[in-house]
């Protein structure tokens, strides 16, 4: 079935609500969602299961934690990723630590959904891609789907997972469309090799996957055989798939939508430097947002963000490096 990334999210929610009566969906404006990813769900499942919440992010996330501890499967839509910060205590101190601190006495089937809104003239407070913050918070799984199929399958996996999962959808991908196999199950923790190659590995996170794939014809033109790997989830991180590729190519560029400092890219880079030092033929390249808050003016955001041109340039530079 052909569907957009946004529709894929809706279809996954629909399927899980259908499959299991203990699934409930909390969210701000969830009954009449602006982007369509909850269209009609309230009419199908009722207000008892598709629940409009007050603007109380901490209370909502905590409520979803408590309800999950007591046998419900909870999904919370906080809409924009920046709003995670308002619920930070409930996410970092409660959701992330419940399994560990109480030594596995509870299950915590909780999914927190947010969208990242970069490159959309949303300015500093509505443009963050804060997945690295949560990578440094043990106890949370983190998924970053980059195509409709992954959006669909990973959301279903996140909902049924008995651990807290933060699901970062990428609003820049919302209207990409492709065939989605609704029976395809993707486990959290499996990277996807988007295209095989032998010269250089390009590891991509979230929206960077699409940018890298768009670049492919130009790389082929330059006689560069790139292996593009979409991580799909950051916790757990399928580092083995990445390592296998880098052992083969000896060169790697990592493209991340996050700010560069302590990013997913810098973490992957650090693992590769630690574990594959002798396999590397060149320094590791990173393309990410520069370390400044996201500016409003279009040209300014383009200046600091990972673009097709920047990834291309980085790949070419790393290819040209000789020891």
């Amino acid at each position, binding site marked *: 079935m052909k569907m957009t990334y946004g529709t894929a999210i809706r279809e996954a929610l629909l399927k899980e609500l259908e499959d299991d009566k203990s699934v*409930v969906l909390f969210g701000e404006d969830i009954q009449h969602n602006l982007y369509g990813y909850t269209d009609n769900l309230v009419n199908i499942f009722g207000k008892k299961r598709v629940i409009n919440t*007050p603007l109380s992010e901490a209370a909502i996330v905590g409520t979803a*934690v*408590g309800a999950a501890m007591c046998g*419900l499967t909870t999904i919370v839509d906080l809409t924009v990723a920046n709003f995670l910060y308002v619920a930070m205590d409930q996410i970092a101190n409660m959701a992330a630590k*419940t399994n560990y601190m109480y*030594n*596995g*006495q*509870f299950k915590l089937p909780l999914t927190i959904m947010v969208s990242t809104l970069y490159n959309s003239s949303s300015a500093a407070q509505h443009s963050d891609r804060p997945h690295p913050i949560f990578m440094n918070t043990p106890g949370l799984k983190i998924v970053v789907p980059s195509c409709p199929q992954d959006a669909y399958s990973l959301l279903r996996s996140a909902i049924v997972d008995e651990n807290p999962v933060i699901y970062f959808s990428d609003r820049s991908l919302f209207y990409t469309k492709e065939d989605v196999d609704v029976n395809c199950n993707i486990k959290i923790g499996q990277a996807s090799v988007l295209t095989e190659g032998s010269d250089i590995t390009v590891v991509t996170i979230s929206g960077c996957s699409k940018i890298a794939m768009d670049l492919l014809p130009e790389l082929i033109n330059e006689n560069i055989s790139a292996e593009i790997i979409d991580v799909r989830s950051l916790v757990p991180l399928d580092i083995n798939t990445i390592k296998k590729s880098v052992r083969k190519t000896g060169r790697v560029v990592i493209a991340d939508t996050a700010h560069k400092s302590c990013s997913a890219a810098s973490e992957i880079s650090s693992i590769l430097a630690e574990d594959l030092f002798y396999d590397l033929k060149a320094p590791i390249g990173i393309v990410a947002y520069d370390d400044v808050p996201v500016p409003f003016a279009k040209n300014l955001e383009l200046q600091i963000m990972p673009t097709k041109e920047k990834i291309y340039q980085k790949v070419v530079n790393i290819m040209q490096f000789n020891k």
Partner: protein
Amino acid sequence: MNKNISRIESVIKDTLKINPERADETQKFIDMENSEKISLLRKMIRIRRFEEKVTNYKLDGKILGPVHTCVGQEAVNVGVCSALSDHDYIVGNHRSHGYMIAKGAKINLLMAEIFGKSTGTNGGKGGSMHVSDISIGSLGASGIVGSGLPVACGAAFASQYKNDGKITCVFFGDGASNEGTFHECMNLASIWKLPIIFLLENNGVAVTTLLKGVSASLDLYHRAQSYGISSKQIDGQNVEEVYYTVKSAIASIKEGKGAVLIEAKTCRFHEHQEGHAYLRMSDVGYRDKQEVNYWIANKDPIKLFSNKLIAEDIIATSEIEHIYAEENHNIENAIAYADISSFPSNEDAYSNVFIK
């Protein structure tokens, strides 16, 4: 001297200004069995003895990390948890031993947890601030002030959704009532008519900050009104009053009237935490020592209730002594159990980050 006492008495009166509504409540449930009353007394004694031991072991360095005891506040824990049924949920905060014991926790496992042993309720991964045992309905204890309230709302939501008839009670202090979560959760519980009791233990102080310095009103139960939640202020040193009020709250929730806030006025007899660093704080003058001593002498919940039961001929002094002896023995056993238990294995550090 006399002048001083009368000043303190007026302070006490102020702090314990009793809401007139409360008198009616106690009349509704005059049928508590004598054995049940004795059981309330026994639980308070058990908690007191437990906490005194913990206090000493913390001073000796046998217990590591932050330890908050509830000495002086036992009537709140016992009154509430005795009124709840076994399957009802409780959510706690940093001062977490008392209601765990009152709800029926095995003190051996509790003590082992506080000692950081593998046999503890949390396998040694939680410690004093996070003791939890789902088998007695405990949904954990959070050391982040105010953070248990949302989780409790979630438990209550689940009960409402499943229609399982359970009530959730969340314990928190006057300090927590200034956190945003308190206000968010009062609103949420009200609009969703959640089966939840907000149990505010108002001991008038948060670490060293007196409530009167950080709240315009000392009567925190008033705050519930603006959220459309019914609320009561009660004498937290009177275990029967706590018990009856919670029974009445449960009845009201079961009638479908929604969440209730109970503000129990009480007193923290010890410092905020146990240990040498905190003992020092008792001399820095953040609160009136004479006032605390007055509470200890005149408002000790165990003494008050013992005297009442003796006066009503429900129990003899010798029987009370016997209870003390038995509970001492139980606590000694718990200490011995914790002592001989092994620490978790190093590999345990990596388990249960995620549920498999």
